[in-house]
């Protein structure tokens, strides 16, 4: 079981969180009409071996979305913080 450092609640069990996918993808601007951008955002993912940034939702705690750096090979946990501070912003229009 992973233990995840929530900046609000401290070191907590993985079972309190839900996984939210790749935290490196950038959401296109709301009024972006280009389907390729949206297809990329929704469907295209890398599958890295090693450190990877991903979203975790502290559902059983403060309900904050976190960005967690996790090594996909060793499960070593790296930098962790609130998504509202670390997540990529919407793309420029």
């Amino acid at each position, binding site marked *: *079981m*992973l*233990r995840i450092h929530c900046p609000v609640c401290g070191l907590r*069990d*993985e079972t309190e969180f*839900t996984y*939210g996918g790749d935290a490196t993808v*950038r*959401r296109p601007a*709301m*009024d*972006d*009409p*280009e*389907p390729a951008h*949206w*297809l990329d*955002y*929704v*469907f295209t993912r890398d599958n890295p071996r090693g450190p990877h940034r991903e*979203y975790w*939702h502290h*559902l059983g705690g403060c*309900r*904050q*979305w976190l960005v967690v750096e996790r090594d996909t090979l060793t*499960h*070593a*946990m790296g930098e962790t913080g*609130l*998504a*509202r501070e670390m*997540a*990529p*912003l*919407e793309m420029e229009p």
Partner: protein
Amino acid sequence: MTARRLDRGGRIDRGRTLTLRFDGRDIAAHPGDTLASAMLAADIRLVGRSFKYHRPRGVMAAGVEEANALVHLREGDRREPNTPATVVEAFDGLVATSQNAWPGLRFDVGAVNGLASRFLGAGFYYKTFIGPFRGTRFWMVCEAFIRRAAGMGRATTLDDPDAYEKVNAFCDLLVVGSGPAGLSAALAAAEAGREVVLAEQDSQLGGSILSTPVGGAQDQWREEVLARLAAMPNVRLMSRTTVFGAYDSNVFGMVERVTDHLAAPSNGMPRQRYWLLRARQAVLATGAIERPLVFAGNDVPGVMLASAAATYVNRYAVLPGERVVVAANNDSAYAAAVTLARAGARIVLCDVRASVPKELSDLARAAGIDLRPGHAVLKAQGGQRVTGAQIVAVNGDGRPSGAAMRVACDLIAMSGGWAPVLHLWSQRFGKPVYRPELDAFVPADRDGIACAGSLIGAESFNACREQGASAGGGSHVAAVPESPTFFWGRNLSPVSVIAHAGGRTPGKAFVDFQHDVKLADIDQAHREGFVSVEHLKRYTTSGMAADQGKTSNLNALARLAALRGMELPAVGTTTFRPPYTPVSIGTLVGHEFGLHFRPIRRTAVHGWHHDHGAVMTEAGLWLRPQYYPQAGESLREAYVREAAHVRAHVGIVDVSTLGKIAVQGPDAAEFLDRLYTNKMGNLSPGRLRYGLMLREDGFVHDDGIVACLGEGDYLVSTTTANAAAVLANAEHLLQTAWRDLRVHVTSVTDYWAAFAVAGPNSRALLASLIEADISNAAFPANAHREVTVGGIACRLHRTSYSGELAYEILVPSTHGLAVWEALVEAGRPLDLGVYGTEAMGALRIEKGHVALAEMEGRTTMGDLGMEGLASRRKPFVGSVLRLREVLADPSRPTLVGLKIDGSIGARAGALLFRRNDPATGHGEGWVSSTTWSPALGCNIALALLRHGAERMGERVRVVDLVGDLDVTAEVVSPKFFDPEGHRQNA
């Protein structure tokens, strides 16, 4: 009589005698005994029959690595199969029976399998799937054979009568194993003030020290350290506790056998506890397990690990044999040989090494041991017990180099080196490092986990203590005097197979005892081209029995390496997975079964529903009334009555389970416009609107009602099932891409109870309870307002799911029951009826309202005929991808209604075909929801059908291949009833 109880010594309480029963025979035992030691004391050699060949098997070890002496423990609902007799603590009244033998242990019909062993070799089961055997009667025989043999013992089919507990715990340091290394680690850490948990699978703390003479120097040190540890408040000493799993972030799974050493748990005690322990650091001091030697007949009862033989003498005061042949390839067996000799046995010691250190040969001769350097046991003789050994001179490869000679004996004690117990380490980190001088794989310290003692090849008792203390954060420890050490790693000869050229042995030589994998099976797998250890393991099943190959893995790997002409590390090793030893399912389940399997959510009115005879149904975690049967009514009769009553009079249904989210903040309107397909930002206070949400990929996600309470203040409803997902998604967007929006979303589902009041008399009912003017003019469709019912502030929404004139009243949950009862009371003169989810479904299907049976994740707005809700003036989630070319395919199934011919009806999931087409393949669509319609007087359904809109009036086949149903139906508009909505707008 050969094996017997010694007069002196041992860690047993001779003051008390217990009676155990094995296969109907009474056996005397003392507290401190195991079932195995008591059997040996009674000279019981034959304990069970083996997996494939039903060969006689006896005790071969003294711990969890036991592969042969497996029994059914206890009876009736507590019967547990495949229990190693070596770990069962003796208690008065213990009952055990042998496994895998019919009609009896001594005469077992299954033993004829031994004669057919040619056909039961490596991979025989897989081979029955191919070639000439495939599909034949022989294949059927093999299939039945495997099914019967799998699992070996018979599990009980009765309910488990015992209770189990779960514990969540934390510590600074977990020490696994209580031998000299583990005790030293715990002591060092505890003295530094750290919170320490020391876990030991044995009933006693001390590890290998328990196998040394009572009262010796090591034993005295153990007593002293245990007394100090027990006195410290920051130490938790846990015996009978197995650390079975090592997981990421230093989380450990442990099982504490609280009452397994008793006949049954005493009142209120759990049988076992499952501990989930989070440790800042851990010290693995798990020791090592002795390797067997591979020679013909090495499974005959009376062939035992040398260290186990010494343990039976020193710990249990049982001499396991009087005339003993010790077979060894390393130093450690000399200690065992001397122990047995001092206890009165006559010893012949065969050491495959041609030259033996002088220190050892002197010691052996002083103990009266007949030492034979350069010799090995070629074959163990005997059937149900060892009667002799063929010993032979061997060369450096373990090949006989002369004629064998017979030595009469009743015990063969073998030592083929040692295998560190690196299972927990391997679970975490995978592949260990091979140390050639030890001929073993050895772990190393890694993030947060230190290793100490025999696990990493410590050479002596004091070396174990040094390593342990260091791993526990301590410094140098003063040496304790110890008897001469016989460290196995020194001068070890890596020969563990005694066989002629080509692997020939004069009888079956076993590598994996529990799965009956022979040396010849490994050789055969190699001949058939298996080169990977992972494949070899699965093909031969070596190491895949309940003991996970604790005694067999290294021998199998070594043999494969020798056959391939490679070094052991080049062949590699398999990875261990949890659990280290088998864990009862009941322990992992704990109390989470039956009603406690998952939380149950009940609405504020649950008790009322129960008292009024509601049949409840599950909706996610919620329980909801499905229908309220009157005397003798079936489900169908009840829901048809309830639905018809709503259309004729008025009904009330509990809809508290719908998700409710407060959306608040200066940018709430903008946020809702982005989330919903239709325009929401222009809602004025006092108005509400139905809305639809898509997923990012353009498919329909959820629907619900948005009510504008004031500027920047909205109350949003979702479906019951999607409430959590909609909220989580809203939070995600607001905390990532849209974090410039100043909006808060809060779940208020549990705050509000909600009831729908529907039917032509609904306005009259509500008007009789509330003061406000709710006439159609003052309170039209899609209006909402605050009202009071009996002094309780509620919200009233004019919204209809049933298609009738209807309202939803939202009540603070604590007052939910009071308001519900007030509504029921006020409804008496108006003939108010209660209805459940089944009638609610019938009413919404008649109206063609979609639910999650239609919004099932694969349907678009177009598919559901809801294009009109897509705003063209603003972007929204999914607005670009919903227009993907592939989703514009005109042949996609679209929502239609079906009027089903006849009275049988259809079932959701039934397939649709053209009337004259054969019912093969996936058809042209499917039924999503169906009901008997009281309003139309026939069975109707909502369905998705290719080119649906163009097929009105066509008759289609409705085929349910599961329910064996084949009917016809007319394709119609999904708006079956009151399509213009006159009734709800009245």
